[in-house]
């Protein structure tokens, strides 16, 4: 992805050697003659003249990272679009370096001294087979009273959870979104097509519990019919009703009902059902 900013370095005009000296002299003269002082310079002065205050650069700032990088690459003036985030970039070396690294790698704006040779790339895509969501079993698929049921094996869930997500561990890493998609599928029932996503998220306030969210999207412009969803994981039974936008949040699931004592292994299969109500 190339940077969106149109850089025309071929037509550059170098600043003349005495440019700084001349400009500063002009600014001093402006000051002596009591002329208007630029507002940005006023802000800079006020900023320097204040004692520094402590502030946190937190997860929210790292969550913003891909959004700001996205817009910077598209040529958006991020100093104007994201003034708060930009201030933090100026102040925090790690956040700034993360941002600069992202820009450099995504825009290819650096010397290519570190590159993999063609023969050094791995072509093994077998990992794709581990991430396939099973299709549902659909009862009465042609009627308007259908029911779709998904069955996720504990083994599949373990691969998802412990490959990419630690539900009981609140990472201080740069996680943009501490959640994973357990199931992603499209299916046809009752003469319509739907997209389904079941997502599991770890919550900061209740790390011992899992937030399970279902999203059902009709693949047409007709409104979503009334549905109900059921989830069985281990001995726990949960139900939820999708809202008009297809979102349904199940009640929080205690992790100790699905993990072993050490918290390293999911013990039970998961069953998800979706039906017209």
């Amino acid at each position, binding site marked *: *992805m190339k940077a969106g900013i149109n*850089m025309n*370095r071929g037509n*550059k005009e170098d600043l003349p050697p005495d*440019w*700084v000296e001349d400009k*500063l002299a002009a*600014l*001093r003269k402006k000051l002596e003659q009591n002329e208007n002082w*630029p507002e940005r*310079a*006023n802000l*800079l002065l006020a*900023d*320097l003249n204040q004692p*520094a205050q402590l*502030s946190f*650069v937190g997860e*929210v700032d790292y*969550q913003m*990272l891909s*959004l700001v990088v*996205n817009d910077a*690459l598209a*040529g958006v*003036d991020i100093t104007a679009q*994201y003034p708060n985030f930009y201030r933090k*970039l100026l*102040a*925090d070396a*790690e956040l700034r370096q993360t941002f*600069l*690294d992202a*820009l*450099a*790698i*995504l825009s290819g*704006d650096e010397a290519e001294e*570190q*590159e*993999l040779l063609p023969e050094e*790339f791995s072509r*093994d*895509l077998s990992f794709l087979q581990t*991430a396939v*969501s099973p299709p549902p079993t659909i009862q009465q698929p042609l009627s308007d009273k259908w029911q779709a049921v998904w069955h996720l094996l504990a083994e599949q869930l373990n691969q998802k959870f412990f490959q*990419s997500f630690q539900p009981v561990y609140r990472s201080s*890493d*740069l*996680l*943009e*979104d501490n959640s*994973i*998609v357990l199931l*992603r599928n*499209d299916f046809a029932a009752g003469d319509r097509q739907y997209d389904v996503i079941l997502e599991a998220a770890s919550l900061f306030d209740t790390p011992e519990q899992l937030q399970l*969210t279902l*999203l059902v999207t009709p693949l047409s412009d007709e409104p979503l019919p009334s549905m109900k969803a059921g989830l069985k994981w281990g001995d726990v039974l949960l139900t939820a009703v999708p809202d008009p936008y*297809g*979102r349904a949040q199940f009640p929080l699931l205690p992790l100790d009902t699905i993990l072993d004592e050490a918290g390293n292994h999911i013990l039970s299969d998961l069953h998800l059902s979706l039906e017209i109500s």
Partner: protein
Amino acid sequence: MSWEAEALQLALEHALHSLAEQRGAELVTAVSPIIFTNLDKGRVQTFLEQSDCSPIDYTWRVADIYEQWHTYLQVVQIEQRDDVWRPLYKKLQTWAFRHLPRIGYPAYASREDHIQQAHACAAKAAITLINAYFPYDVNFEPWAYVLLRNVTHKHMNRTLKPRLEAQKQEVELDAWDDWLQNLEDPTGHDAQRLVELRADLLRAIDQLSSEARKQFAILYYFEYKSFEEIATQMNKSPNALYKLHADTLANLRKIWDESRDKYE
């Protein structure tokens, strides 16, 4: 700008209604769940608070990105087609290979090991990418890159124990928010003092340790140039300017604080 939950929900509903009128109901049916899921996740609020955008801007942003990327995401995350995954996986490996040294992967390690670590990170990132929720308020590559970076960090923490900073740190942040209350009144009896301070500022800029920093300070603070204009004039990339700005500010603060110490 900060929004109350109900007001934001309403604003987004209005924006979607407007989107439906202009771009069709089918698009709105597709993006509504995405927008409200992002709302549930706090992503919309974060975006609006940290940017200069409105709910209608956000809605249009998601709609545009959805139209651009949803077919690709379908192929990547659901169909998982080899012909799409091959170049994507290559890209993930390239990113991981380039990224590892930036987060402390030792320079003395062999190229073979470096490649192996890049493969491992890319494979993990690929699985994570398939299982991750794509928010459609950002283009695919920045999102995928940040995801890969997170995976690479985890990999480094768990397997190679590099010198990374793993904790949140309190950082000195210049106090922008309070300056309005404390800025000396230029029309009052402190006008003379303000002139002196401004002269001190010009002196401090003159003492910056490089010509580039002086040029940047003048172009940005006094001539109101945009980053794009400064990049052209100084023959630098925007990436380099972000760093230059931070370095200039840090340098200026050091000079300023030292000059205050002399006076006290």
